[in-house]
């Protein structure tokens, strides 16, 4: 009846049309001529810069900074980057809308508490938090808040706070954890994988295979639990949970990194074996280069390329995997908001986290693509 959830799975005509329009816009971006892509990419880039700069420095400086940024983009950014950015804004809009639809069609409203409130109370709350009964209306309110006020909206469940104030302290925590895990996974994975790949079927190879096996075959929360038992409860070296000093980060980062380290090790091993069988390695050896130079100068780049292309998905995986680890270790990061927002139907929190995640994943994918191009001159000259 009154509550949005009870409408069940059917989309209204307006909602369906809006989704279709969003997809069409996204598709339309592909038909833009290169010049238009430059313009749109630069302006979208400026828009995103404005959203971020406004939070940091306020509207006037933010506007100036973002216009400058847009001009710099237009003038200097590679076409491929601008093309990506062109797709980014419609993608994010579509993401917000689709997520809104999903939330509105999921059963349960954010205003239901254990004790039933009167319809008037609910209406008062809806008005106060800007969560009307229709998804399309909500989308409008949300966008207005985002664009005009530069706010991700108030959280329904954590009173008195906007989503950005909730996420601002959580983001560095998650980023720290995620980046550290990513670096750890890359470092350990690359090292093991390359060592194993250089000497297949050696002891080092078996060791790395064994480690990959552990990382691949158990969910991270099991690894985390085993880590807690061993290092926190049995040995007492590390704290059980919490956040505050460097000792707190060890177990979560390792837990988060291990599955990815395992995968990276596999990729690096494969990459190394493949590279080491290449003719140019023989050429390098024929020059009389010592093996270390052969590996470092000639093999490494090729060996890590498959790993680099995996970093995009890995970053996404680490970010979304982080809430399991954050839950397990009681870390005040983004992941908790993400899960709790969805479960509590805290619409703004869900959208805010989704936006941040999507932007991070996109940004990281762009970085990875750039890194790939930087590492592989053949890709570079093609684009």
């Amino acid at each position: 009846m009154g509550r949005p959830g009870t409408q069940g799975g059917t989309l209204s005509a307006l909602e369906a049309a809006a989704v279709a329009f969003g997809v069409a816009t996204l598709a339309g971006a592909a038909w833009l001529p290169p010049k238009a892509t430059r313009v749109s990419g630069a302006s979208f880039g400026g828009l995103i810069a404005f959203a971020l700069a406004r939070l940091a420095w306020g509207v006037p400086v933010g506007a100036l900074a973002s216009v400058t940024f847009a001009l710099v983009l237009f003038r200097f950014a590679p076409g491929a980057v601008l093309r990506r950015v062109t797709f980014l804004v419609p993608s994010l809009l579509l993401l917000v809308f689709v997520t809104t639809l999903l939330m509105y069609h999921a059963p349960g409203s954010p205003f239901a508490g254990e004790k039933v409130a009167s319809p008037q109370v609910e209406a008062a709350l809806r008005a106060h938090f800007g969560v009307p009964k229709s998804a399309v209306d909500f989308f409008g309110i949300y966008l207005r808040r985002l664009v005009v006020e530069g706010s991700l909206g108030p959280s329904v469940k954590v009173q008195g706070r906007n989503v950005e104030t909730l996420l601002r302290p959580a983001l560095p925590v998650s980023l720290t954890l995620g980046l550290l895990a990513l670096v750890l996974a890359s470092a350990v994975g690359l090292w093991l994988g390359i060592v194993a790949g250089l000497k297949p079927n050696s002891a080092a190879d078996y060791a790395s295979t064994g480690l990959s096996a552990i990382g691949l075959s158990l969910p991270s929360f099991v690894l985390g639990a085993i880590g807690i038992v061993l290092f926190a409860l049995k040995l007492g070296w590390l704290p059980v949970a919490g956040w505050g000093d460097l000792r707190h980060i060890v177990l979560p980062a390792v837990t988060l990194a291990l599955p990815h380290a395992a995968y990276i090790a596999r990729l690096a091993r494969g990459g190394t074996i493949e590279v080491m069988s290449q003719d140019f390695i023989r050429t390098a050896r024929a020059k009389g280069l010592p093996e270390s130079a052969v590996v470092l100068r000639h093999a490494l780049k090729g060996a890590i390329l498959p790993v680099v292309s995996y970093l995009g998905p890995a970053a996404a995986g680490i970010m979304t995997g982080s809430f399991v680890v954050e839950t397990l270790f009681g870390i005040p990061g983004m992941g908790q908001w993400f899960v709790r927002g969805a479960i509590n139907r805290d619409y703004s929190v869900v959208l805010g986290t989704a936006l941040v995640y999507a932007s991070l994943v996109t940004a990281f994918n762009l970085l990875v693509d750039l890194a790939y191009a930087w590492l592989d001159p053949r890709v570079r000259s093609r684009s």
Partner: protein
Amino acid sequence: MSATLPSPPLLRVRELTTEFRTEDGVVRAVDHVSFDLQKGELLGIVGESGSGKSATSLSILRLLPPQGRITHGSVELAGQDLLALSEPAMRAVRGARIAMIFQDPMTALNPYLRVGEQLVEGAVLHLGLDARAAERRARALLDRVRIPDAAARLKSYPHELSGGMRQRVMIAMALLCDPELIIADEPTTALDVTVQAQILELLNELRRERGLSILLITHDLGVVASTCDRVLVMYAGRVVELAPAAELFARPLHPYTRALMRSLPRLDVAPGGRLETIPGLPPRLDRGPFTECSFAPRCRFVHEACRVAEPPLSEDVPGRLRRCVLPLDQLDRAETTAR
């Protein structure tokens, strides 16, 4: 054989035997191969693919892949046994005294590094040059191998160069440390015919200019005929014939060499005539040890004697070696009747 030649050979290969472990068992890719290479000489090694030519060259430099192993024999460079050297000592030989040019310059050059970076590293390593001197030297060599705008090319990546250019880069790279010996493993196979000739011409020029010895490995008899001093013919991992180039082409002494030549297009045969092919395929090397002549299954002159045992290498004609039991006159007779 050594008696016929005045000076001690630069490279002396004796009974070289190399085996590969494969999924199907051990393969003997190089089987008791012996030959000498004089200073300034250009020796060609010819054979079908899989005959062991490349394995021979890699064995000389000890660059076999992990599954390959030299099981027997010796390789002496100016009297020094390379197989006895420690790995660091061997590295000092590679690139500095023996350089190698590989078949496909596309894959033999590292795609991730600039041409310049790849060129200079040998000079820095072996000649102890600093980066700038090494680059000067590299540029000079690129000029020498007739690469236009050498300075710019140093900054290029391999994929930005044409095939011929890349092979010139390879040659320049090989020349960088003034080696005594260059092993060129099918240097022209991956190139256009016009470029092939230029590259061969360049190699020959450089040989004359610098007194280089070259071991030219090829499956292309035409290349051998035009450039080599002497020719070694390999089949199934073994030497089947060794002769000065001119003599070999005038009168091949082994049925396999003859078959090879007949499969070449020739100017002295009327156009429209059919090229011959060698029936069957080379033996699978994992089936050894040989209890018969390895060419016997495909040989048109095969007879009982061939089935009994592997024929030895014999010097039936002075200065020439061949691995065949068929008397020379019979061979010639059969040849004419076959025509």
